[in-house]
């Protein structure tokens, strides 16, 4: 074991001796407040969206409770510990993704679940934290901004799990995992020139692929994906209804428990992926402003904590985790309000169900752990 790590460990207890409970638990006050506010807000909306069904509320409460436990547990791990485990977690997750394709169970038409006898779970969920960890691990001792070689290898670290997840197929999770890798690269200092170049190449390649690489029916599918309202008998129905719900909410909203669209069953998936529309209908633009503000606060605080982190591994991991959370919010809200294609991502901390709450909270736990564990003595 390296000496600086020993020093670091020995300073932990001394430093925390006289701090408050939060510091002793390695939690971050402002961030915790934001998360709890969002979770409570979620329960309030869910009560309405779920037609005041207490069972739903209890189940969601249990999930949130599990999430907070996961957060507290993860916060106890010092960053160097996470760093040492990063490659193993990543490789384990990759192995399970392959296993899921080979023997996994099919649920709702996609192969995502791995049955471990006692529990069934989605290995792709692990990748949402494993990829940022692995990216951080990889960049940790590389000179930054990354060399071309480092860019290529780190891209592979991201692309392999994304490909496996796409194969399941699970577009939403693939998008999250892919963007987490992308953000890590961005934060590591990928040069603007390369980003512009890639963007330009994409702009040139897309129309070529469109004209020569695709068949008619594939083009039709892409068009429907990009413009769901052209298929009102399929996924477009949800969008038409959610736009009515949002629009009719107006500036002030119809009031809690007074949303008509959601309660009259016009809005499918009102308590899960489309809960944003229920919120918008009942609390209006003002409520939405507060919700988005709360989300922005959580993201900004997380990024701020990332900036303060002492080394590359911690910074990249913390920054990517913060930005994944942003992707959740933006993709879900964009989809429900009809400016983004329909990708099945929940509104984080608010949508009912899903194992994602636990993963998200565990991610915030890591972030807090990174922030609150004292930095090693400077080198």
């Amino acid at each position, binding site marked *: 074991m390296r000496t600086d790590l020993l020093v670091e460990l020995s300073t932990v207890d001394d430093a925390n001796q006289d701090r408050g409970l939060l510091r002793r638990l390695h939690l971050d006050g402002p961030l915790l407040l934001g998360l709890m506010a969002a979770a409570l807000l979620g329960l309030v909306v869910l009560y309405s969206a779920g037609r005041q069904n207490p069972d739903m509320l209890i189940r969601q409460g249990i999930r949130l409770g599990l999430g907070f436990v996961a957060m507290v547990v993860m916060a106890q791990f010092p960053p160097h510990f996470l760093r*040492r485990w990063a490659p193993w977690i990543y490789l384990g997750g990759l192995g399970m993704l392959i296993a899921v394709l080979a023997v996994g169970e099919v649920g709702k038409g996609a192969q995502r679940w791995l049955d471990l006898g006692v529990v069934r779970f989605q290995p792709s969920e692990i990748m949402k934290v494993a990829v940022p960890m692995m990216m951080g691990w990889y960049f940790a001792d590389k000179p930054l*901004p990354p060399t071309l070689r480092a860019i290529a290898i780190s891209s592979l670290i991201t692309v392999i799990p994304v490909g496996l997840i796409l194969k399941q197929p699970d577009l939403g999770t693939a998008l999250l995992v892919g963007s987490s890798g992308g953000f890590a690269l961005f934060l590591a200092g990928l040069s603007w020139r390369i980003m512009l170049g890639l963007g330009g190449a994409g702009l040139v390649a897309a129309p070529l692929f469109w004209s020569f690489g695709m068949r008619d029916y594939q083009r039709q599918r892409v068009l429907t994906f990009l413009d769901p309202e052209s298929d009102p*008998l399929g996924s477009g129905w949800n969008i038409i209804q959610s736009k009515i719900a949002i*629009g009719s909410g107006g500036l002030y909203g119809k009031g809690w428990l007074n949303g008509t669209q959601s309660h009259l069953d016009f809005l499918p998936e009102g308590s899960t992926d489309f809960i944003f529309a229920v919120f918008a209908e009942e609390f209006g633009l003002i409520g*939405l402003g507060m919700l*988005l503000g709360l989300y*922005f606060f959580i993201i900004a605080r997380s*990024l701020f904590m990332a900036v303060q982190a002492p*080394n590359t591994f911690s*910074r990249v991991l913390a920054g990517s985790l913060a930005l994944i959370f942003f992707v959740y919010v933006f993709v879900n809200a964009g989809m429900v309000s009809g400016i983004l294609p329909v990708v099945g991502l929940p509104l984080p901390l608010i949508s009912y169900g899903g194992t994602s709450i636990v993963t998200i909270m565990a991610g915030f736990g890591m972030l807090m752990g990174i922030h609150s564990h004292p930095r090693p003595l400077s080198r």
Partner: protein
Amino acid sequence: MALRRISNRRSDLVKVKDSMAEAQLFSRRALVASALVLVAMLGLSARLVFLQVYNHEHYTTLSDSNRVRILPLPPTRGLIYDRNGVLLADNLSSHRLEVTPEQVEDLDAMLRELGTLVEITEQDISRFRKLSNRKPPYAGVPLRFQLSEAEVAQLAVNLHRFPGLEIKADLTRYYPLHERAAHVIGYVGRIDERELKIIDTSQYSGSTHIGKTGVEKSYEAMLHGRVGHRQVETNAQGRVLRVLESTQPVPGKNIYLTIDTRLQRMAEEALADYNGAIVAIDPRNGEILALVSMPVYDPNLFVNGISHKDFDALNQSPHRPLYNRALRGAYPPGSTIKPLVGLAGLEYGIMTAHKSTYCPGFFRLPNSEHRFRDWARGGHGWVRLDKAIYQSCDVYFYDLALKMGIDRFHAYLDQFGLGRHTGIDLDGEKNGLLPNKAWKREVHDQPWYMGETVIAGIGQGYMLTTPLQLAHSTAVLAQYGQQFKPRLLYATQEQGSDRVIPELPRSEPTVPMVSRANWDQVIRGMELVVHGRRGTARRVGKQAAYRIAGKTGTAQVFSLGQDEEYDADNLARHLHDHALFVAFAPASEPRIAIAVIAEHGGGGSSTAAPIAKQVLDAYLLELDPLYTATHENRSAG
């Protein structure tokens, strides 16, 4: 361990890293990221302002006073005609009973009460429940199809007692010619669970039926059309108040088939006494003129759900009427393969048309006692290619196949489409089997034996062909190697338009030719089969008004459906050989190629050839006017 060692070693590099600069770089990047997040959030807010402030009134109207619904407008299914415009598949109007579950308070009570007015079976109810689980509660779900006029009247007066119940006008598929060409046209049926998983459910949201077999299936996309929809406002009872927006459905295309119904009828009648198949192709373009599989069934039975009794009768019949023998029946080709084997021998240069082989009535492999017998006990004496074909000498082809070897045999016949899909535009085609050494190694894990090559020469052993393949390979021979994909689609037409757009022949790679004279020799042999004094099919040649090039065949029984279902009464016939005949005519300018297989029909010359002759006569003397005209001119002159 390994990883730690690597990271330890690499930690030396840390000195190269400029920690300060890197922290600053990260801070800058994090700042840019926050800015991007802010911009995205503001963009989102702009969208929300647009919806909630700018368009608030519009959406309030939609949300408050009424309900918005999407109603699918199902497209009208395209019709199917034969090449002359004879209607083969029609849409008839009918009535169905639909229930909107959302508007019914007590579904079970309603179903009970309805049952006293019209017949509702358990099957209807279970299908209804399955379908209603898949649709939103406001959507109508069909409960009964094909209401009779009396039932419609009975229901109409009682409709007010059942909120949520509706009688809907509907189009239902009808096949006016019933059994005629049933295996070609196929049929539609209700969409089932398995199909629901693969179809685009929004395209079929207004449709209840889908093509199940035949052309109805293979051209489903073309026939079905594209769904339209109406976005409407309804009141609380679900009555439509206002149409907000609508997109008309695009009806499916009408399809014209290459089949000539008159020829099809002739062929079905000619084969009526046997189980078997007939395929007739225009060799000049691959158009299928007739495609018969006997026995047949009435596709109308399937359209609105076949009863268990009817289905069992069809499905359990030992004659297997639902089985399309023309595409899926794999028969040993027997002697019908001999012309192609002879041609292969000439083209490979193994022998010439003038070289004789002595036929003592049997053939022996070197160093073997086993005798491969000729069908003629006493043998054919000295035999050249033409005689080997018109007398169907087995020994000649045993010898030739052995000299050729199975792999060359395979390579040559493969070019004529034997042993693989012909690519016809119908589903379910079988490959048949054209064996070679590699195949036997792979499937049976055994070496190839010489004796197997010997019997392959007369189309026995492992070799299996479908009637379609036989007709197709005969057509290719007739065209001196020029090859077209067999095709049933003759033309298409937009509904409501007069313009019929003909389909073009689909060319396939031409069979390479060494010498045209070789082909001439083989075709001459085939002409002698019918027109020679001692040809095996000389009886049909006697009264022929045109020249036919043909070949008889008799295949040892290898029955369909395996034998266990045949009962003792059928045993005698079951032991008979299959009768085969392939031909094209007129020999000098072929306009039709045909393959006939009569299961357990006895001999090719006695049974199959006369059937083929009836079909050829019908086509060349009555139906194909162009040829009829020139033919009459000639005989007049």
